[in-house]
């Protein structure tokens, strides 16, 4: 056990249910290159798996705090290409997750911020608790959530997504439930695992062909197969990220 828990991304299979755990609690599970690569290989390994449900969650107090801000601060990393690389990797990861034959479930144990919240919107079902923190504070940091915007628009509908992404800030799990960001809500963090387990079990009882055919149809209807839209979103996010305004705002935040 001690060996597996040191992996930055952990994949456990239990019967028909796979669980991907982002395991970088000291950085609130922020998406670094290493985390994203770990998620890519975990997701890749599921394409031939007979599992029918994938649960994504995080170790510790956060689900995923979004992009690793230290990595994208050019002054700190000394490398302007890291931001672009991260965003492009995130874009491809979201496309892979959306196209999985498994029903995907985000079990939001704590903060799901920016790209981390975008990740929940790619999933088919989101479960959280009343006190979790979710949201898209990108604009507050001078950056642009373009890479995840197509998924947020599909999840929330364009009007509510517009409000959430332009207003920035974060909201409680309960408020997320009210606007459709969260589909199932437990009152407390302590009850979340049990709720997730019961929903994952229920989902896993579906016929594998029926589930994957339904997912594919929904992806066709809602425009999810427009890969270029997500890739273009990553480019827009990268362009804004590299501006002096964004870099100055990030630097101020990290102080």
């Amino acid at each position, binding site marked *: 056990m001690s060996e597996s828990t040191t992996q930055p991304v952990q994949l456990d299979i239990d019967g028909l249910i796979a669980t991907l755990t982002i395991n970088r609690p000291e950085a609130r599970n922020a998406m670094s290159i290493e985390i994203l690569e770990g998620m890519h290989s975990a997701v890749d390994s599921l394409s031939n798996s007979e599992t029918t449900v994938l649960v994504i969650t995080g170790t510790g107090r956060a689900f995923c705090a979004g992009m690793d801000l230290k990595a994208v601060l050019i002054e700190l990393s000394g490398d302007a290409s890291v931001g672009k690389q991260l965003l492009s990797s995130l874009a491809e990861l979201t496309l892979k997750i959306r196209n999985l034959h498994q029903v995907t479930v985000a079990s939001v144990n704590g903060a799901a911020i920016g790209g981390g919240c975008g990740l929940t919107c790619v999933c088919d079902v989101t479960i959280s608790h009343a006190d979790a923190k979710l949201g898209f504070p*990108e*604009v507050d940091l001078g950056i642009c*959530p373009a890479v995840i915007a197509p998924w947020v*628009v599909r999840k929330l509908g364009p009007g509510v997504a517009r409000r959430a992404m332009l*207003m920035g800030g974060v909201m409680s799990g309960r408020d997320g439930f009210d606007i459709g960001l969260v589909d199932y809500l437990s009152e407390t963090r302590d009850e979340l695992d049990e709720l997730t387990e019961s929903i994952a079990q229920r989902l896993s009882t579906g016929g594998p062909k029926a589930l994957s055919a339904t997912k594919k149809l929904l992806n066709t209807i809602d425009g999810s197969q427009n890969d270029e839209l997500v890739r273009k979103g990553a480019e827009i996010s990268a362009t804004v990220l590299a501006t002096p305004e*964004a870099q100055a705002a990030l630097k101020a935040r990290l102080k």
Partner: protein
Amino acid sequence: MKDSMVTVSFEDQIAIVSLNRPDKRNAMLPSMLTELNQVLIDCSAQTQAIALLGEGKTFCAGFDLKVCAQDPSGKIMSELLSGLSTVVRTMRSLEIPVVLGVHGAAVAGGCAMLGGADIVLADQSCKLGYPVVKIGVSPAVSAAFMMASIQAGPVRTRLLDTKLVSAEEAYQIGLVHELVDNAESVRSRTIQIASNLANKPGSAISATKAWLNEIVSPMTDNAQIGLDVSLSLTGSHEEQERLSSLWG
């Protein structure tokens, strides 16, 4: 500017734009829409956000139907439809966010303006809707932007059913994003949100708004078709008969 049907004032980094025909419940005339469109464009060059409001007891009762009823040619109705379509498209295409605060009533053309706004507030007692088919007018002009705001099911119901809905119902379907306790508070809360947006990094806001517009462009690209459908009925026998029976 004293007699203007659209007033504008500046506060910090925002523009406060108001429909100003309170004795007619801010009913729209072609000249009002032309003026509003120009004001919005001018403001976007000078400020970081716009708060859009209505003076008097109601936000906007829609087109001035009394004027339309006196024009059998349907020319004024056509100008109103085109003007409304232009205003909504302008609101959406501006680089800066538009926060719309409605109170009392946002009906027909007044409700159509919600489709162009980035953030919409309404007071709890506000009534909203598109009761236009009963006067022989097609709300097709509003359809594309409604589809780009809320789910398709509620769009259909709201455009085809003449019933007005409460602010609470409008909030439930996502047409309104925030409810305000009373009409008097709509102005201050709208200004507060616009100021909040104006203080965020401007290029991040404009890039995000532009990208959201692009994502929904498959829907909003139909705006012209919708306008054409609405225009095709102007001056028709059905429309004139219904308008004059109400206002003639």
